[in-house]
């Protein structure tokens, strides 16, 4: 094997080694541990950029790279597969990792002993879940990332964190049972757990077995929907993300995307082999769930009293929109959904970080319910004080945070000019195009529904975020100014600049998403790359000696 081929496994090896190394310090020598963490995360970023660039090349052999663990052929051993989609998700993970780490280094990483090792193990689980080509291995990586996430969710301790983590752990353990049941039913009927081999077996499956197989696939799908926090399986998310410390919540923003990624991946592979029909849900199932998730999240946003929960619900909006878009199907829609996924993940992560900075200056009295205040005559007091408030300058730091907040609001709501708008516009325009082209001149009810839900959720986002913004930035007279460090602002800035970059480079990025989606739509290159991968026999014996 050429050494460059080993690059595929690097996103798993690097955090594993770094995390293990850091454990040796037993929570002491923070500078050393932090340095290891920084080096490992930057290495991860570099590797994922290289993988992405290589996957974009014309060379077909590099577009879908298969790595045989232990050099066993695909069906017998476990494989890792790095194609465009996987590389994209790896890069997104690495970027979020860098931003969250930068933010955490300012102060948060001191809130508990094992932040850095857990952080690396979380990244390892995420990368593994994106790279694996095998269902059971996927389960293992899910558990790795969940175990790390339980620890991270508790980071900083405190009542709210312990309580929401307790719920989170129970729900995920139950979901893991679903996962295992689904996996074992699939193994029992199809006889393999390799995703690509599975696709080939499904086509040839006996009709009597087919029903059982689909039941297995659906049970598996439920596990993924729990991870993606789809309605009605996502009630655990807002309290957990609101309670989690900011850098942790920012990395968690990608965790819901793991579920979405797997749904997309398995949907593509099995649709190719199974004659186009999605295996996971009946026609329109994903779409309905997505719509319900967005609706629930939009209402939740309006009802949110604090910004942490608001950010939590914006995660739900993001995963619901992607689900609905995937549910509509078609390469154009998938590419738009991918663009939205990237943009919204970066935005939500930035929002979580920003919320923590803004809330830092909050006094406990500010926690009076926002709506209650508006209802019970808070306005009257303000009228009396109006004159004295004239001419108060906005402190510089609040000004900077305010601009970042505005950018987040625009991105979340999908208003021009930032990438949130481009993403939603792409989804809507694809929706309209697709229907006008296919169904001679009329958009179906489903299409209108998605259109309405996306626009209305944008509106409720504007309302909710504006209300939070007004209360935070325009009524600051008696609150302490938050102490913000440059690195923390830098982390938020990094994510927001990337969103701006996505807007400016929307054309090339969209073309990349388009080729990714086309690759997914075909499915065949992935399947044949995995099943056709022969052992690298001639060279191997020399190496093992």
């Amino acid at each position, binding site marked *: 094997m050429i050494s460059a081929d080993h690059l595929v496994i690097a996103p798993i090896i690097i955090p594993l080694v770094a995390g293990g190394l850091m454990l040796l310090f037993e929570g002491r020598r923070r500078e050393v541990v932090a340095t290891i963490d920084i080096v490992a995360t930057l290495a991860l970023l570099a590797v994922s950029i290289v993988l992405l660039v290589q996957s974009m090349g014309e060379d077909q052999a590099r577009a879908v790279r298969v790595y045989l663990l232990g050099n066993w052929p695909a069906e017998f051993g476990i494989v890792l597969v790095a194609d465009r989609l996987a590389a994209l998700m790896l890069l997104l993970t690495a970027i979020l990792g860098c931003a969250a780490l930068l933010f955490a280094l300012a102060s948060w990483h001191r809130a508990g002993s094992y932040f850095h090792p857990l952080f690396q193990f979380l990244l390892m689980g995420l990368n593994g879940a994106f790279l694996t080509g095998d269902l059971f291995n996927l389960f293992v990586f899910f558990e790795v990332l969940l175990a790390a996430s339980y620890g991270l969710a508790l980071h900083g301790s*405190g009542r709210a964190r312990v309580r929401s983590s*307790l719920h989170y752990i*129970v729900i995920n353990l139950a979901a893991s*049972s679903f996962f295992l*049941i689904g996996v*074992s039913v699939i193994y*029992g009927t199809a006889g393999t757990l390799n995703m690509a081999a599975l696709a080939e077996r499904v086509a040839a499956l006996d009709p009597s077995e087919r029903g059982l197989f689909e039941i297995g696939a659906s049970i598996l799908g439920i596990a993924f929907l729990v991870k993606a926090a789809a309605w009605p399986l996502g009630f655990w998310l807002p309290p957990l993300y609101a309670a989690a410390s900011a850098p942790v919540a920012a990395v968690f923003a990608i965790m819901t995307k793991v579920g979405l990624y797997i749904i997309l991946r398995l949907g593509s592979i099995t649709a190719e082999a199974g004659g186009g029909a999605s295996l996971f849900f009946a026609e329109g199932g994903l779409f309905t769930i997505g719509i319900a998730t967005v609706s629930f999240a939009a209402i939740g946003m309006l009802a949110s009293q604090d910004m942490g929960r608001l950010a939590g619900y914006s995660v739900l909006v993001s995963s619901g929109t992607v689900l609905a878009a995937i549910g509509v199907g078609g390469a154009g829609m998938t590419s738009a959904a991918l663009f939205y996924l990237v943009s919204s993940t970066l935005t939500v992560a930035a929002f979580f970080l920003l919320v923590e900075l803004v809330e830092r200056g909050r006094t406990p009295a500010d926690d009076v319910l926002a709506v209650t205040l508006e209802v019970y005559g808070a306005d009257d007091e303000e009228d009396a004080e109006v004159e004295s408030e004239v001419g108060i300058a906005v402190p510089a730091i609040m000004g900077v945070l305010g601009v970042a907040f505005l950018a987040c609001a625009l991105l979340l709501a999908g208003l021009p000019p930032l990438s949130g708008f481009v993403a939603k516009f792409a989804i809507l325009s694809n929706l309209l195009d697709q229907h006008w082209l296919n169904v001679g001149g009329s958009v179906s009810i489903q299409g209108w529904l998605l259109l309405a839900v996306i626009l209305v959720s944008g509106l409720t986002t504007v309302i909710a975020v504006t209300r939070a913004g007004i209360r935070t930035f325009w009524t600051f007279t008696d609150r302490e100014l938050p102490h913000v460090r440059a690195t923390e602002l830098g982390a938020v800035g990094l994510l927001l600049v990337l969103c701006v970059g996505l807007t400016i480079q929307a054309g090339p990025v969209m073309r990349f998403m388009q080729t990714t989606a086309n690759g997914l739509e075909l499915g065949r290159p992935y399947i044949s790359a995995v099943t056709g991968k022969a052992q690298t026999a001639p060279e191997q014996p020399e190496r093992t000696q």
Partner: protein
Amino acid sequence: MELVISITIGILAGSGLWLILRPRTFQVIIGLSLLSYAVNLFIFGMGRLRVGKAPVLDATVPPYLAGYADPVPQALVLTAIVISFAMTALFLVVLLAARGLSGSDHVDRVERGS
């Protein structure tokens, strides 16, 4: 034997499910354990039930699938057992932390009527 196994799985899963829905954290953890036992047995079952067959190749047994048990589910079960064991231990820690912080073993930290 199929009947015995399925009834066992059913009882375990049913009791586990009922316990998960109970309000005390200790009941929930026992429920999760029972559920994971049920799932482990189920994974075994999906490899087809065989009596007295080893999953390891043996020179005296003819090399046909009929002579062997399926080794893959056994490997899967082994992994699943280890993972669920670790997760239960982890949950136990969080459970104790929650009990210590709030002084209540209710999953929502709110006693009825208080």
